[in-house]
């Protein structure tokens, strides 16, 4: 028999009650002893939404646990800072939720930024110095198209790098994006593709200018010569991965024309429409309402407005270089596809028809997903699902193994694959934190320190200090942030992000 009268399990107010609650007690009598987790040291790798959500949810279960959050970048918040588009400030507000755990528990929960695993500190050393480790570092490695001339021609980019660049992400600041041409193509039908399109369409937006987009990036977008934006997807309008919010937003932008390459793909019978699920039906309605047929190239010329063209059922099969044989991109060869039911997966898949068309474009952004890279010694990676094999956040010894690596957990994209936004990450972290808490409560986490002397956070500090490595802690980050706010104010914008590492360290050293 178990009582669920612990109303306060997840709430901050009754922390005392939580710690007095014994998970598997069999009676309601008050015989519970206080769960003392003050000797428990947890390391979380990654300080994006997955890392900080996990920290806060573990803290709710084990309020006196010591948590160290390691981050590769000099600042926290991962894709909230460097991935969410600057014109989506409402989505960026989650920063406030994430930051709370760092603000409220400075003695227990430590942010250690500018630390690259296996370069600055060995992964094995982290495992040795903590009772448990949660990998929450997202997924790296963008998928290429794998077609001729992709690596030879200029102006072929990853959409994620572009978002990172205009968001002031340090690692993307040496990139150059050529936006001078009239025709830009974006391959992929997810929200990142729409982010790129929307930002290019907003080149004259004063609102965009006042966000946290870097001034350099805004100036370049503002001066761009882009007139036609082609979004290319191998499947049809009913298979898109755009979410309806993003679709509604871009289709309703003022002063643009929105076209579809083949309007017949939107001809559905009432019966077919009635079979669509909720989300599909809503996106179908949006596309049907807003997209006009593109009948000739002339339509794009005879207007002062910018044009957004959705190309469905098209796969890029080759990049086209200029006639001189140099490295300039002039277009892409697209193959027309048809949808065929895949008997294995029972899903519609795009199959080429050997019919080709050429699309003129001088810059291309790829946004077709992620490949993943194996990041940690001794930790398996499943390249098929682009994630670390796990059960409810516990890392398996191998892809199909029923056994687990003791004390090792995953959360966020690296746990479930590279898709999903804040609500999914929050739930992913809740599940992992609950699993970790259960393991802790049932003594499945070894609390004996295998090394003598320093442990946990202190040991990380010592290792990095001995290597003469510069770390950036939470207070350092706050100095950077207040400088960004100050510089932003001077320019009439939300933030002016610091985009040079030496500037960051100068600000920290000078305390201004």
């Amino acid at each position, binding site marked *: 028999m*178990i009582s*669920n009268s612990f*109303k306060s399990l997840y709430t*901050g107010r009754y922390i005392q009650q939580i710690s007095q609650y014994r998970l598997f007690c069999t009676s309601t009598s008050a015989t519970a002893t206080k769960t003392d987790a003050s000797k428990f040291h947890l390391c979380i790798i990654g300080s994006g939404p997955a890392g900080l959500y996990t920290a806060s949810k573990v803290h*709710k279960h084990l309020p006196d646990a010591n948590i160290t959050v390691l981050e590769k970048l000099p600042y926290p918040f991962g894709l909230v800072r460097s991935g969410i588009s600057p014109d989506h400030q409402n989505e960026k507000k989650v920063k406030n939720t994430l930051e709370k755990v760092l603000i409220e528990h400075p003695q227990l929960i430590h942010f250690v930024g500018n630390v690259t695993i296996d370069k600055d500190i060995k992964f094995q050393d982290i495992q040795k110095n903590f009772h448990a480790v949660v990998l929450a570092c997202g997924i790296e490695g963008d998928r290429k198209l794998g077609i001729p001339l992709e690596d030879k021609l200029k102006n072929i980019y990853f959409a994620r790098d572009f978002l990172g660049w205009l968001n002031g992400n340090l690692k993307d600041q040496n990139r150059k994006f050529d936006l001078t041409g009239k025709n830009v193509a974006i391959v992929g039908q997810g929200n990142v593709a729409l982010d790129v399109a929307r930002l290019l369409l907003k080149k004259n937006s004063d609102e965009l200018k006042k966000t946290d987009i870097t001034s350099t990036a805004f100036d370049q977008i503002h001066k761009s010569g882009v007139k036609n934006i082609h979004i290319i997807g191998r499947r049809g309008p009913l298979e898109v991965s755009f979410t309806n*919010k993003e679709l509604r937003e871009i289709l309703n932008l003022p002063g643009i024309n929105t076209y579809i390459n083949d309007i017949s793909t939107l001809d559905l019978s009432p019966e077919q429409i009635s079979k669509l699920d909720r989300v599909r039906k809503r996106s179908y309605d949006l596309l049907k309402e807003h997209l006009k047929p593109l009948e000739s190239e002339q339509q794009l010329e005879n207007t002062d407005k910018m044009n957004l063209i959705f190309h469905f059922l098209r796969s890029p099969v080759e990049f086209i270089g200029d006639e001189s044989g140099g490295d300039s991109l002039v277009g892409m060869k697209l193959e027309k596809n048809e949808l065929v039911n895949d008997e294995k997966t029972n899903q519609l898949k795009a199959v080429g028809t050997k019919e080709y068309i050429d699309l003129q474009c001088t810059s291309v952004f790829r946004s077709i997903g992620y490949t993943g890279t194996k990041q940690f010694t001794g930790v398996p990676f499943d390249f098929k699902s682009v994630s670390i094999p796990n059960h*409810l956040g516990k890392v398996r010894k191998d892809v199909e193994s029923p056994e*687990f690596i003791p004390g090792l957990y995953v959360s966020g994209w690296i746990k479930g694959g590279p898709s999903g936004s804040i609500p999914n990450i929050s739930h992913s972290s809740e599940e992992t934190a*609950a699993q970790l808490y259960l393991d802790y409560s049932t003594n499945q986490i070894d609390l004996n320190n295998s090394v003598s002397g320093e442990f946990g956070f202190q040991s990380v500090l010592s290792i990095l200090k001995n290597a003469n490595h510069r770390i950036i802690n939470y207070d350092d980050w706050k100095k950077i942030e207040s400088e960004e706010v100050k510089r932003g104010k001077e320019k009439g914008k939300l933030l002016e992000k610091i985009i040079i590492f030496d500037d960051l360290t100068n600000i920290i050293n000078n305390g201004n």
Partner: protein
Amino acid sequence: MNIIKLKSIFTPSSLVTSYSRCGDKSLFVRYFSSKASNTDKKDLVTFNYINKDGSKSTVSAPVGENVLEVAHDNDIDLEGACECSVACSTCHVYVEPKYYNMLPEPTDEENDMLDLAFDLKENSRLGCQIVLTKELEGMTVTLPSASRNMFVDGYKPPKH
């Protein structure tokens, strides 16, 4: 046997909570204005939350407040990542069907967010879009949970 003991706790608005608030009202103003309205019993709505662990909390809050704000005032663990700007679905709740039908239809923007909600059901709504009215007296809203089934007996943690 698994006995779920439902516990009703009335917790008044508290100053200690540091959850982000909706709108521009400061903590100070919110605290005292909600205190002031608490004195007028006619404008209070009493309703229930089913928490992530399955327990029940009964609260009273003034007409005009939304289910997310009231949750934060009462330390109910309902998230509000976008602070009521309808840009996420972290405050997603299930509304008891009888009361669900009394609510005004969700806007396109709310529906766009519900599309993305974890474990969407027929009676899903965003907490920040449910504004308390007198007719919602006695309503129950349930928080989705990713871990509720881990905390009932019979659960066997996987072995290392």
